[in-house]
């Protein structure tokens, strides 16, 4: 028996569910061991003699990716660390997605710790990303058929998660660097996907979620998903409620809360009833 204390800035190889991979890849291999940047402030965990965790606690952090098709050409923060097989160093880039994983049966070995400057850059990027999206003030009058908007609750279907999830961040909103010039050039040359996946709060047990009152961290799981997993919109929450949740996430990853400002025209004319429900099959 031993104890390992994970700290913010640690990177460990963890077994992560493949929520971002294409379906056929995820079916073949539902989990994949990848480097994971820990964002919990401090997380003491018990391990067995082999260093495998025996406690089920939530670890929140960020995927690190090397040559993955998802990250190529995306704005990133680079760093090098020993490879899984320790055959040499590899340059890794962030960010694929903010997510939570269970610590149970994970081999907890910290292989790298971000330097203070890297951590500061990371925190700034995260802070810029973890903000509620400003909506068009007349949006209440329109049926947003073509988008998956933050604040909406969707039934999702992936290999590892089937149920309802609240969209926290939209595709493209989650970047690790303000300087996107390099990535734009990469985009042109490699024709790579530049946008990030969606970050959602998945509710493993709850169905028919209409308000977050009474829900705790244990009732949800932050994960990154691609848009092909969204099946059906089941509800949408007020921007202020989503902002509350976003602040809860920011608190966990060590960022100061932002002050939510009500839009000048809140729910224009109060006519949200005019929004038609989404016809079957239309996105």
């Amino acid at each position, binding site marked *: 028996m031993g104890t390992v204390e994970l700290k913010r800035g640690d990177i460990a190889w963890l077994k992560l569910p493949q929520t971002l991979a294409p379906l056929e890849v995820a079916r073949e291999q539902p989990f994949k061991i990848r480097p994971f940047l820990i964002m919990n402030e401090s997380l003491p965990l018990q391990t067995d003699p082999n260093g495998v965790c025996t406690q089920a606690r939530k670890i929140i952090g960020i995927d690190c990716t090397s040559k993955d098709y998802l990250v190529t050409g995306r704005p990133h923060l680079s760093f090098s660390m020993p490879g899984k097989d320790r055959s040499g160093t590899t340059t890794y880039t962030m960010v694929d997605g903010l997510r939570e994983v269970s610590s149970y049966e994970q081999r907890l070995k910290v292989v790298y710790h971000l330097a203070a400057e890297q951590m500061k850059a990371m925190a700034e990027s995260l802070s810029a990303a973890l903000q509620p999206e400003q909506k068009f003030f007349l949006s209440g009058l329109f049926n947003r058929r073509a988008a998956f908007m933050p604040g909406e609750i969707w039934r999702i279907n992936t290999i590892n998660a089937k149920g309802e999830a609240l969209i926290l961040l939209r595709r493209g909103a989650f970047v690790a660097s303000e300087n996107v010039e390099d990535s734009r050039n990469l985009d042109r040359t490699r024709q790579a996907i530049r946008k990030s996946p969606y970050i959602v709060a998945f509710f493993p047990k709850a169905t028919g979620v209409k308000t977050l009152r009474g829900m*705790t961290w244990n009732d949800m799981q932050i994960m990154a998903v691609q848009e092909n997993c969204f099946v059906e919109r089941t509800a949408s929450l007020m921007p202020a409620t989503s902002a*509350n949740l976003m602040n809860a996430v920011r608190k966990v990853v060590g960022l100061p809360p932002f002050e939510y400002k009500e839009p000048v025209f809140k729910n224009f004319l*109060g006519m949200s009833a005019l929004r038609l429900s989404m016809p079957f099959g239309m996105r």
Partner: protein
Amino acid sequence: MKYFMGPINLTASDRAIKTLVRKGSATDDQLFEAQFGQWPANGLQKDTDCPDIVHFKGFWGDRKLNPLSFIFRTAYTRKEDEHDRTIYLNGLQLTPLAPVLGIAASRLAWARLHDVAGLTGMVEAPMLIAEIAAASVLSSYRYAIASSIARLVTPSLSDLVGEEHIHIKQFKEDNRAIAAAAFQNSAYDWLNNQGTMKRVWTEAKQGIDAVLTMMPRSYFSSDYELQARLHNVITRGYRKWGRIPQTKDELYIALKDVGIKSPGIVGRYYVDEKFDALKDVFGGHSGEGYLNPPNAEMNIGLNSFRSPDVLEMYWRDCLPVLYGDLLVKYGDSRGKEKMGLSNEVDLLGLPLHAGPDEPHDTGPGAPSPV
């Protein structure tokens, strides 16, 4: 504030508050004592002192404020400055004209547009119909007008200072158990996700209410404002009950007693004889929902959703949380426990229920939080 006149001081609590305002400052406990008449109040198990100082200042105009705020604002606190524990009172209240001008400055002035129309000879048939519709159950106008008249006849400095005092404690304390509008947003979340017909019907009722009441009603349904008014309801009720509610049942019976708009299930649940003893203490004062401004303003807030389901949700969940937190503000550290709440918080930052729900928590058609 040495020459502070204030409105007519009809009650002992008004006079006591006026003395403190003239002094220029008071502690939290002194303000509570002035409002309740005795401190700790009967029934309150106070185990924490509240020695922090509250200051009083007059304001005649402030460039940072909207120029119209001088006309429409009776008092305010600066929530953006966590170190400023000052209640700013409208300078008009420093003059003998305070009873009239103070009332003119009240937010409820909007509600009196109906009466102005009547007084100026506009009582034609359409206006009469509008007046009748406004005074009916279709709108919250009846609460607005009754409280407005009550403010005109019996203006209360105690209510004014009490409300701002609670706002100071909400904004300045580290433990912000009450978010500005978590319950309000939660209610809108729930309403927005109903079926199309139900949503259209509710929003139609809200629209009619908004037009007929002619005032920003949702202001009164925010968590901060409801809690500030709940405090004034309790201080006014205390003079009749002789003690403050200490359990959920006592709170519900007391609020129902003073005319706070309640869902049908509350009335049905408390018909039982086993509650007779409680009803003897917290009973016999019905109708005050119209006559006391804080009660009426709470009713405007609770009525603004125009939804029986949301009203039930507020009674089941919101009011005990607001009151439990109020007890903590009074100095009873176990206030939340007494309302059946735990120290854990949910994703919105609000306390969770400690044990299994009580019988009245699970009525037919009760909206489930999850």
